[in-house]
């Protein structure tokens, strides 16, 4: 075998080995758990009877080490609430569910990118430090109104400071 061939074949094999090791570690660590393991469930037809989702929006957290709970209902073809204000510097736990079909929940410019599935409550915890406006979009094709399905997340000054 040519000397150069040996070099690139060993580099390729090494990167494959590293990839498999990273995949193996992330499969059991760091929150990369399958959707069905430990996720909270909810009956999709009775979402609005649940106190948390009867009036979705920002609520002061009563437990945990974060400041607010933010409840979202993603349905065909809208988000509730259609607009939400978050005080800058606060840590928010977002809860999303769907009463009908699978929707997406992506907050543009952040790492928040979840699926909103009927029967499951998807959550993501994040601290919003910089004031600004983020668009929320659906990125799971859900029907004819899919492209119009948006909401706005506004991070505004005058919130809790804890930096």
């Amino acid at each position, binding site marked *: 075998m*040519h000397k*150069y*061939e040996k*070099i690139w074949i060993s*580099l390729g094999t090494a990167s494959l080995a590293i990839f498999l090791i990273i995949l193996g570690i992330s499969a059991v660590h760091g929150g990369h758990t399958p959707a069905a393991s430990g996720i909270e469930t909810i009956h999709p037809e009775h979402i609005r009877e649940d106190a948390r989702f009867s009036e979705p929006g920002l609520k002061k957290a009563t437990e945990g080490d974060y400041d607010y709970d933010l409840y979202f209902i993603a349905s065909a073809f809208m988000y509730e609430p259609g607009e939400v204000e978050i005080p800058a510097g606060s840590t928010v736990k977002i809860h999303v569910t769907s009463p009908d079909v699978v929707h997406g929940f992506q907050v543009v410019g952040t790492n928040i990118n979840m699926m909103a599935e009927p029967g499951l409550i998807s959550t993501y915890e994040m601290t919003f430090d910089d004031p600004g406006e983020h668009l929320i979009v659906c990125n799971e094709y859900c029907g004819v109104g899919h492209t119009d399905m948006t909401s706005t997340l506004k991070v505004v000054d005058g919130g809790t400071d804890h930096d």
Partner: protein
Amino acid sequence: MAEEQDRKKEEEKHDEDDHHKLDLRGTFMMVMAIGGLMLLSWFAVFILFMERM
């Protein structure tokens, strides 16, 4: 005569299989360049992800 031709053909074929005699510098450079590009873009996306945490 025919036997000699056959042997010559066999030798040529053997040369083709023998990679030691090939000039692979250009191939090597392109393989390394693509590998470098993949590594660079992996880190670019990873840094973007960490920035947004």
